């Protein structure tokens, strides 16, 4: 029987939550790296026992941890993220130039073909790669060299590169997203990048249709349709059918189209999930009701999923990397909250259970489906 392993990053450590394929009984291991912020953990699809973790602290800076036994033991790897050349400046909150400074790793995306290769999205926004299992990291400078870098400005959480999608068909194609610059695509393995923000409309920036400057919160893709992308922007849920060249809004009947996370069902490429959040100043669900919204039509028509989720007095947030899906026959959906709950649905969102209730604030959730 297959099993699932849920990797949870929190404000004060990492947790590894395991269950068999029935997904009824859950075993929580951790905290690992207690007291440290774990922005993201993700396992290799090639070698599921290989897991990378981003560990950081305001006191001690950035560390990268690696496990080769499915999260039981960890080894600290290289933590030097040096920008290539003279990093230059981006825009600061007040519009003035501000030097590029490394702060932390937001997201680690292991290669689809090589467990020793992984990509790291960092703040201040840049993309790094390791090809030796984390022993060294080198920037892919073409992204900051796009030419628009001086116009990128930090979102409330910083100038962070938080989304990395490796195209499952075209090995040279990757998508990334930055708050608040927008989405970018490379078709040559990271040498050159194109801003793919046409169709985005952001009222809070001077030119609402600017090439860059959009606060993209997350982008998701189904591997069977790599040209179809779904985006949760600061406000607006968007969709592209041409690899990001154009976007159209699919917020439809959502109660609010602000939110952070978005994901796609493992077996139904037109079934997508978001967690609407009331607004950018009120980072909690509307009406105190924690509702996942599902669209089976790739957007526009949404249904609230509430069974098993708190429907009164709930004021938690669900952050951008805090939702994931497993690939069991009945697709499991998982998300974590800033209140420390991790919810799981073994039936595509119809019903939910808390598999952890009292963790520190959850920053990220990833799921590994482990073949027996």
């Amino acid at each position, binding site marked *: 029987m297959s099993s699932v392993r849920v990797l949870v990053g929190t404000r004060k450590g990492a947790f590894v939550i395991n269950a068999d394929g029935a997904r009824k009984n859950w075993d929580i291991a951790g905290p690992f790296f207690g007291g*440290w912020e774990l922005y993201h953990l993700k396992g290799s699809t090639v070698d599921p026992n290989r897991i990378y973790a981003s560990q950081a602290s*305001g*006191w*001690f*800076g950035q*560390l990268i941890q690696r496990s080769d036994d499915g999260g039981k033991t960890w080894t600290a790897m290289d933590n030097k993220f*040096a920008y290539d050349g003279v990093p230059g400046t981006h825009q600061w909150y007040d519009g003035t130039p501000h030097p590029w400074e490394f702060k932390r790793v937001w997201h680690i995306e292991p290669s689809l073909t090589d467990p020793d290769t992984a990509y790291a999205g960092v703040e201040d926004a840049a993309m790094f790669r390791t090809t030796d299992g984390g022993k060294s990291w080198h920037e892919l400078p073409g992204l900051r060299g796009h030419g628009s870098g001086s116009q990128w400005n930090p979102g409330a959480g910083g100038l962070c590169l938080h989304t990395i999608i490796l195209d499952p068909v075209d090995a040279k194609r990757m998508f990334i997203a930055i708050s608040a610059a927008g989405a970018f695509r490379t078709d040559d393995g990271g040498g050159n990048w194109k801003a793919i923000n046409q169709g985005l409309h952001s009222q809070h920036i001077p030119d609402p249709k600017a090439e860059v400057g959009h606060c993209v919160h997350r982008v998701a893709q189904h591997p069977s349709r790599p040209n179809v992308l779904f985006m949760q922007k600061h406000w607006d849920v968007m969709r592209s059918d041409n690899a990001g060249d154009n976007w159209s809004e699919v917020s439809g009947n959502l109660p609010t189209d602000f939110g952070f996370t978005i994901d796609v069902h493992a077996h139904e490429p037109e079934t997508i999930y978001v967690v609407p959040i009331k607004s950018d100043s009120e980072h909690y669900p509307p009406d105190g009701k924690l509702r996942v919204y599902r669209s089976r039509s790739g957007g526009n028509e949404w249904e609230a999923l509430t069974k098993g989720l708190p429907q009164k007095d709930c004021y938690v947030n669900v952050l951008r990397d805090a939702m994931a899906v497993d690939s069991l026959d009945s697709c499991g959906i998982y998300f974590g909250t800033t209140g420390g709950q991790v919810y799981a649905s073994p039936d595509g969102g119809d019903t939910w259970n808390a598999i952890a209730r009292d963790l520190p604030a959850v920053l990220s959730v990833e799921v590994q489906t482990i073949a027996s």
Partner: protein
Amino acid sequence: MAIKVVLPAHLQTLARVGSEVSLDVDGPVTLRAVLDTLEDRYPVLRGTIRDHGTLKRRPFLRFFACEEDYSLEPPDIELPERVRTGAEPFYIVGAIAGG
């Protein structure tokens, strides 16, 4: 003469050492020499006490020796004799912060 260095708890865990480590420092026992030796001995600490590129002290860490704050001293300042002789430890302290 071996000098003693006391690390904050999280760095003890990271380096897999006890609260105090013993270091043989070549040449003058300066702030820089102690930190260089510490990082050579425990490479996992690189970047956690000083910034990788600039080697500037991380803002939420402080350095103390013989009840004196060395945090703002130049890196080539020699540490007090009681630290140099191993009679007292050199302290790396995490700032009390976070509410």
